[in-house]
């Protein structure tokens, strides 16, 4: 099934919606500065807050997507929708090639947060795709009909540290 993304992206007055969910356009300056502020101020607790915020919003967002597209009802088509929605939202490219209900690996060769972090702050010493980790955990919970927090997503390799691509490992939490 082909998604007509412009139809899903709507303006009602001054508010923006994607498949019925309120969204905002923000640029890499804001997104990465928020991340740095929280990591600097709260350390691991800040990183966890970013991860959980992303997990919760992607869970809600992807649930809304699927409600608007009931014909997307197989695991394969849901994973495809997740990839294309990531791309449509300007978040980058993400590939769910080795994933199942108990976990697996997810690879991202390009992302908004990597591009933005490197442009603003340069190389990191540790993996830093907190948004993507949470986003993956949230959409997989929807796709495999699990609760929020069911999956733990860790980043094994990260382009922010100048790795070739970002590699995420998904396990049961």
């Amino acid at each position: 099934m082909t998604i007509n993304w412009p139809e899903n992206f709507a303006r009602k007055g001054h508010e923006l919606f994607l498949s019925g969910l309120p969204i905002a356009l923000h640029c890499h300056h804001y997104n990465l500065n928020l991340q740095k502020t929280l990591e600097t101020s709260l350390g691991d607790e800040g990183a966890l807050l970013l991860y959980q915020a992303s997990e919760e919003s992607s869970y809600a967002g992807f649930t809304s997507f699927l409600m608007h597209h009931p014909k997307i009802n197989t695991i394969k088509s849901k994973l495809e929708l997740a990839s294309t929605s990531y791309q449509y939202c300007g978040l980058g490219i993400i590939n769910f090639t080795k994933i199942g209900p108990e976990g697996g690996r997810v690879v991202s060769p390009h992302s908004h947060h990597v591009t933005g972090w490197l442009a603003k702050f340069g190389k990191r010493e540790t993996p830093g795709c907190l948004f993507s980790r949470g986003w993956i955990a949230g959409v997989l919970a929807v796709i495999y009909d699990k609760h929020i927090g069911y999956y733990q997503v860790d980043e094994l390799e990260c382009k922010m540290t100048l790795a070739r691509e970002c590699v995420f490992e998904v396990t049961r939490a």
Partner: protein
Amino acid sequence: MAIDTDKIVHAVMHGSRIREEKGIIPLFGVYLSMIPVQYYNRISFGFEKKTGSDGSAEKLLVAAGQECGYATFHGVRSSWEWAEVVEPMIEQVEDQIHCFISIAIAFGWGDLVVQELIPGEKLVVHAKSSYEAKGYLDAYGGADTGKCYMLRGVAAAFMDLVYGGDYPDGCFQYAAEETHCQAKGDPYCEFVARKAAR
């Protein structure tokens, strides 16, 4: 020529549908993303709850909004889209602020209106249905203080960009207060930016 907000909104809506091959949205000189407002509100108010009521989170979140507003709208102002779509509408320096407001509306940041602008001195912006105020009300009920940290920082950043001196040295020349907020039960949110105390 008057500032044509509809034309600017249309340009942003049209441009934000274009992806380059890496799944990135390069528009108005920055990389844009579409993310549920729930994410931003969870971060801001979660941060505030974790740090307690000492105001440190508020200060950092407003600073993040101001610094990012400054960098973002500098990028916007330097872009080819600005030169092509916006620049022809600008007749005097103050018009830049009205154009920044139009772009912020296009970004889905709220129904923003310039209420008062005294060149170099003061900017008053009103917003209805700011996603920050609405998000706070939905999650926590009413507030005692203003909750629109991003918009507060951005209001000051607009003054920095126009009256604060050359980029990148003009940031934090101005500071903004949120004098009314819908999260407190006010009918609108109001941001007043003035020269920062030194």
